[in-house]
């Protein structure tokens, strides 16, 4: 093989890494001390786990997704990244589902209180195969947890030294709508390396774009060669194909304005008839961040802990007030989720909370489709109270 060590392998560079060198890339990343996590096949789905060689990636697998439907299927080729996102997202690593925040001890005299803050490890994750929608999701959660006077220590430590190896999508899922959310299928920023898998007969390689010096540093130890115009064109064709085959579409309107004007739309009653308020959509959503804390004590009552766990605005107690639950109907809870995701998120964090990954549609047991719900309101808007 023709190994070219480029002198200018910096951000903005594009090179070719052959399929056969993918293990070399994974090894180079691990050699830099990263904890490498990537897509694997497990429990009948694409899930994220430790990856040490390309053989552990879902080679030759794809998926079929629709409202309430997810199935793995065999591909008739050996594509490494030929599937869309599965039920998990990277938030489980950066914002763990269960996290002990601190422990507490009573003092010697039984009345004291000593708080032992939980150490916040920095695992130096390398995420392999991060889709563009997921890069956007991480950037969105960054806005939730990092700015302001009280950044989340656990999130910040996990996020800090992360290496993001993105994969540009060539195979969108049936519920994907990133094009209409302007979040994909091609990664535009926020990655250290971005791979486009080109598989065409005998030819099987990755067009690799370098996003950061950190990415360049990893790549320096990996066999690669110069990318030519034809390679770039082939890569562009891959993502163009994904655009053309996008499963769903969010209406191209000002979603914030639409939803804020339709808090009393009859469609909320309609969706409440179907919604089981199971909270699946919030668990699989890569941006949903809500949590509750649970305080526990040992039987002797001398030691206590606080755990933080993912919670959902679909759970009844989530909006609990002294006089009752603020959102007692399914109508109001679905409305809270969707208006937050698409409308009030903009007020809070400056962007939409939706990245168009389609997980909430796929994993909804009754196949409620957020794009369809928006379309229904859009097709028959009713001017509501003067909320702005």
């Amino acid at each position, binding site marked *: 093989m023709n190994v070219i060590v480029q002198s200018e392998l910096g951000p903005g560079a594009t090179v070719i890494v052959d399929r056969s060198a993918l293990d070399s890339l994974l090894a180079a990343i691990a050699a830099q001390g990263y904890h490498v996590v990537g897509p694997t096949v497990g429990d009948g789905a694409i899930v994220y786990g430790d990856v040490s060689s390309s053989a552990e990636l879902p080679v030759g697998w794809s998926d079929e997704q629709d409202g309430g439907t997810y199935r793995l299927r065999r591909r008739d080729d050996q594509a490494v990244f030929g599937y869309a996102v599965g039920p998990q997202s990277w938030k489980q690593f950066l914002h763990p589902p269960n996290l002990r925040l601190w422990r507490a001890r009573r003092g010697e005299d039984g009345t004291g209180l000593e708080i032992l803050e939980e150490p916040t490890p920095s695992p130096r994750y390398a995420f392999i195969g991060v889709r563009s929608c997921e890069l956007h999701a991480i950037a969105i959660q960054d806005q939730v947890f990092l700015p302001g006077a009280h950044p989340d220590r656990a999130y910040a430590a996990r996020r800090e030294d992360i290496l993001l190896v993105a994969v540009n999508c060539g195979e969108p899922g049936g519920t994907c709508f990133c094009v209409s959310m302007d979040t994909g299928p091609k990664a535009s920023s926020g990655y250290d390396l971005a791979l486009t898998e080109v598989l065409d007969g005998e030819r099987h390689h990755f067009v690799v774009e370098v996003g950061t010096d950190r990415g360049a540093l990893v790549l320096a130890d990996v066999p690669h060669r110069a990318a030519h115009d034809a390679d770039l064109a082939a890569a562009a064709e891959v993502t163009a194909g994904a655009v053309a085959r996008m499963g769903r579409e969010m209406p191209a309107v000002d979603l914030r304005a639409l939803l804020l004007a339709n808090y009393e739309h009859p469609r909320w009653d309609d969706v409440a008839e179907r919604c089981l308020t199971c909270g699946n959509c919030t668990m699989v959503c890569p941006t949903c961040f809500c949590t509750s804390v649970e305080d526990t004590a040992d039987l002797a009552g001398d030691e206590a802990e606080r755990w933080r766990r993912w919670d959902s605005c679909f759970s009844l107690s989530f909006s609990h*007030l*002294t*006089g*009752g639950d603020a959102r007692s109907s399914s109508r109001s809870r679905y409305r809270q989720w969707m208006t937050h995701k698409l409308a009030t998120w903009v007020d809070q964090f400056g962007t939409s909370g939706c990245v168009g990954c389609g997980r909430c549609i796929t994993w909804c047991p009754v196949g409620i489709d957020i794009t369809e719900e928006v379309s229904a309101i859009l097709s028959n808007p009713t001017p509501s109270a003067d909320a702005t």
Partner: protein
Amino acid sequence: MQSIEQTLAATRMFRNLTREQLAALARLGEEVEYADGSRLMIEGEPADWFFVIREGFVALQTDAPSGAITIETLHNGDSVGWSWLFEPYLTHFDARSRGATQAIRFDAATLRVRCAEDRELGYELMRSFASVIVERLQATRLQLLDVYGRATVS
């Protein structure tokens, strides 16, 4: 002290009355003073009077086995009594002075006849009392909600 007419002109519930109507009303009023505990109105008696409180404090009460229960208290500028407007013209609650109360007492029996003759005056007075009734109804609804019951900040 203000004249009766001046007091009425400054009373919010009568703000829509014309000068002539205020004067007509004032002619049926007389200044009265009640000592602590004395009753302005007695439950079940003919409702031939109504009052406007100038200075003081009047409790609307009803008797229960445990003693008199105060339903509402009325204060400066408030009117006391609206049963004079509606058949069978019988008072519903006791109205008891708390401390000394200065009020204007109106001859409602005569005013009823006057209102039947002068429909415009009757209409304006009905509006005045309706606004009072509405305010008291809203307040009663709020009380019924029992909002302080366990529904406030922790």
